[in-house]
């Protein structure tokens, strides 16, 4: 096998990619996903975590309090988020309908130490972005009241839970989403794209009947296969690296970027070789892609079920809590890689041999 021939094939495939501007689509795709994930972040945060919204503007919501005096009224008055009015229930609901209030709270005449629960009725606007926010702000007040009531009724409990005081943390709500899901998925996506690409490249030669022309040059069949694998593999660190850079520009600090790339390169080569083997076997895109993508789902699901799988390792590397076990994982993936590489070489040689014989 000659390195020069490999690079000729790899260059040919790159030229093809650039000529068709498909690479442009890939870049667009990355940008689009980045845009949408930032939408997801900002959107979900502001929808469900109003404290992040209040960074933009601090606002006191007008709420009405109807019914009997209780601690809720005290908590509402001391809360910086609300301006409370004692109102008659009917008037308050009418004002709510005209958006002069954000919520109406009705508290019944139930004693804190009664056998029955205290049932508070909360009126908010239907289908309203703001009422979602008010709901979450009111939740704090209600939680406070709940713990007061629990203390009053504590004597009636059979078993007290283990005490543990957790300080109210600030932010960090989407940390797990970003590091434990987004980063492994985004960094791993180029591997999936590349392995689908290698199937296209190989089956194309068969289906467009360009294989014979290619083999009649000094390039051997095996070299052609490895050249295509090389071209696809080279794309992976570029794309994955681009993701890491994009994420870092977005202010998401990522530990161990080099190690992450190393793991991605090894794991992606496994997938690419799997794709190559499937493509060499079926020689037809529909069948090969179908079998490969089904197989891929199985492999990914299975590996996710195992502890310390490569995706988990990516997450742990990114947050900087990966221990020495990462080298064990790397060792295992490298062994799998070598076995697959050997198989691909033998299989390609066999096909080349049978083509010569026939």
């Amino acid at each position: 096998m000659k390195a020069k021939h490999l690079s000729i094939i790899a260059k040919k495939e790159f030229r093809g990619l650039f000529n068709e501007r498909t690479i442009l689509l890939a870049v667009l795709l990355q940008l689009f996903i980045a845009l949408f994930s930032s939408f997801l972040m900002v959107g979900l945060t502001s929808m469900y975590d109003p404290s992040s919204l209040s960074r933009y503007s601090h606002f006191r919501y007008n709420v009405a309090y109807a019914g009997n005096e209780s601690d809720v009224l005290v908590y509402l008055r001391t809360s910086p988020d609300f301006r409370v009015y004692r109102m008659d229930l009917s008037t308050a609901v009418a004002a709510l309908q005209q958006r002069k209030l954000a919520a109406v709270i009705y508290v019944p005449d139930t004693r804190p130490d009664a056998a029955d629960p205290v049932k508070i009725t909360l009126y908010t606007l239907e289908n309203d972005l703001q009422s979602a926010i008010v709901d979450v702000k009111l939740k704090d007040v209600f939680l406070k009241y709940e713990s007061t009531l629990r203390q009053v009724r504590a004597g009636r409990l059979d078993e007290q839970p283990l005490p543990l005081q957790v300080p109210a943390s600030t932010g960090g709500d989407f940390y797990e989403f970003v590091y434990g899901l987004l980063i492994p998925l985004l960094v791993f996506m180029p591997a999936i794209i590349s392995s689908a690409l290698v199937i296209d490249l190989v089956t194309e030669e068969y289906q467009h009947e360009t294989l014979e022309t290619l083999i009649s040059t000094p390039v051997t069949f095996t070299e052609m296969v490895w050249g295509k694998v090389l071209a696809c593999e080279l794309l992976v660190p570029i794309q994955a690296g681009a993701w890491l850079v994009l994420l870092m520009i977005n202010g998401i600090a990522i530990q161990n970027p080099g190690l992450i790339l190393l793991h991605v390169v090894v794991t992606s080569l496994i997938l690419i070789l799997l794709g190559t083997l499937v493509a060499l076997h079926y020689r037809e895109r529909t069948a090969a892609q179908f079998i490969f993508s089904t197989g891929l789902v199985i492999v990914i699901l299975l590996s996710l079920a195992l502890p310390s799988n490569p995706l988990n390792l990516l997450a742990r590397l990114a947050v900087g809590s990966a221990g020495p076990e990462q080298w064990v994982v790397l060792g295992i993936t490298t062994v799998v890689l070598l076995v697959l590489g050997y198989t691909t070489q033998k299989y390609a040689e066999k096909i080349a041999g049978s083509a010569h014989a026939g």
Partner: protein
Amino acid sequence: MGMLADIATIARWEVKKSFSLMGRNVLPVAVIFFVLLVLVTGFTAQTGLHLQDGMYTVGVDDPQVGALLASDARFSVYVMDAPSLSTHRDQFDVIVVQGRAAGSGTEKANSALNTLSRDYAKYVNSVYDSESDLFAAYPLWIDTQSVTSELTFLSTQSGQYVSAAPGRAPPVPTGVVQNVPTPSPTLSVTEDQLRQELVQSNTQNTQISRYTDVLSSGNPAMGTFKTPSQLSPPLPFDSIILVFVFIFPLYFTSQFFMMSIMNERIERKGEVLLSTPVRTASIILGKMLPYFLGMAAICAGLTLYLKASPLILLPLIPIIFFFLANALLIGMLSRSFKELSFISIFFSTVATSYLFFPSIFANVHIISLISPLTLIVLTLQGTAWTATDYLYSTSLFWLTSAILFYIAAKNFKEERLFSEKRLLTRAREFLSEILPREHPFLSLFLLAGFSIPFVFMVQMMCLVLFFNLPMPWSLVFLLLFAALIEEIAKGIGIYTLFVRNPAFFTWKNLVLACGATALGFLTGEKLLLFATLTQISDSVFGSILFLSLGSLWLPFLLHFGCVLIVACCLKYGGRKWFVAGLLIAMLVHCLYNLYFILGWLS
């Protein structure tokens, strides 16, 4: 009758062909893989997803607390005595000493504390759930009542909060105050029912619900009664996962259709089909029919399996058509397998985003209805939706699929299928094909009119995207992008004609062409607006997207002027000036919007 017979024949061919292709080699493997997939899914469901294992390191001094934390795989727990914990402080994200948790102050530690407090709350709930006196453990219940606002729901989005009441006096409602009955102080549900619901909602401790927990802890099954900790808008996460179960097979099947079209084009294999005396529409419909039936069957099967309401199928059908129409066009446009792969991945990402993201907000906001998936989520939740909702969320899908099918049918012929030109060139040729030479102005009018559903779709996507940015930015971005998209849609017809025959554009023809385009755009816009989108069009956002419904001559002048700018640029500088023309037109459009709609300059 003849056409139906043709379609049936071609459909039969298609089935036979794909089975002979897939037959011997693929089917056995596919069956094995399917069995494997079921096994692996079961295995994974049992062991859980180990994606976030060991993210945080925690040191504790109490083995009991340690055991409590170790039940969550995200924590690597180390039990030591308090002095050694404080000496190794920097190795832990969180330490727990004498029942007090303390983080190290980093973002990671804060996240660990969040997780810790959620785990602890779950543990506390599990203790409370088994208390014999339930109302001592859960003494407070909130009954949430929704009130319909008399004002439009969008007034909050236009940046206008509930008006602050002047001074200390409570706000006074105008008009007649209707009497609201005093709520009864007792719960209408028995203690046992509540306990059951509580246990159920507290044990939903799957890997997925980790994300749900971040966003809510609500359980819609509980009705309007909630404990305070359940009080936040529920994220319909389970339903959304189910929605993916529906959408995923549709992608797969449309891939097969795409490939079948592509296969006809490789090495001119489809020439035989084209030489038969069958109309192209029959060929396309015939080739599509098996895939459509397959997709519908999969959806129906899933619905039966999930024992869901068959109403789910109604919003799925336009989605199926939309996928098939796009698959057809992608199969016809791409030159090579790689191009096919990339375009289809791109398309499916964009389509998924359009379908998926709005439906996350199914319970929060009416804007989520722009995705048909929201209807599915609602159906799965047991919430009713109306025919208007259906029309509102699916009309764009029906319209765009119909137009794409028309374009494909017009271009399904030799010189288009077997040409090897660039993607954009081919797309332009496809457009050029549906603009007949004999009626240039009429065709421009129609093209502009029919581009409206696509424009709305893309603009809707921008709305979804920018809606969540902080207020001034969302408006600025929307303003720019909405204008740009409209200008592209209007300019594209003129551009196509110009490339085909630059000599056609004398000054007189140029003005006429711009007039036809502007008129077509305006007509299409108003028609679709009246039909479906009145809900959104009432807001400030809507008025930027669709202009006001009031006067007609001003928007016409705007459309006309903008197209004229683009056309003049083309005539003056040739094709290279197209982009420049678009940008100038965009600016003019934005200024118009600023001046007339927002009144910022006046």
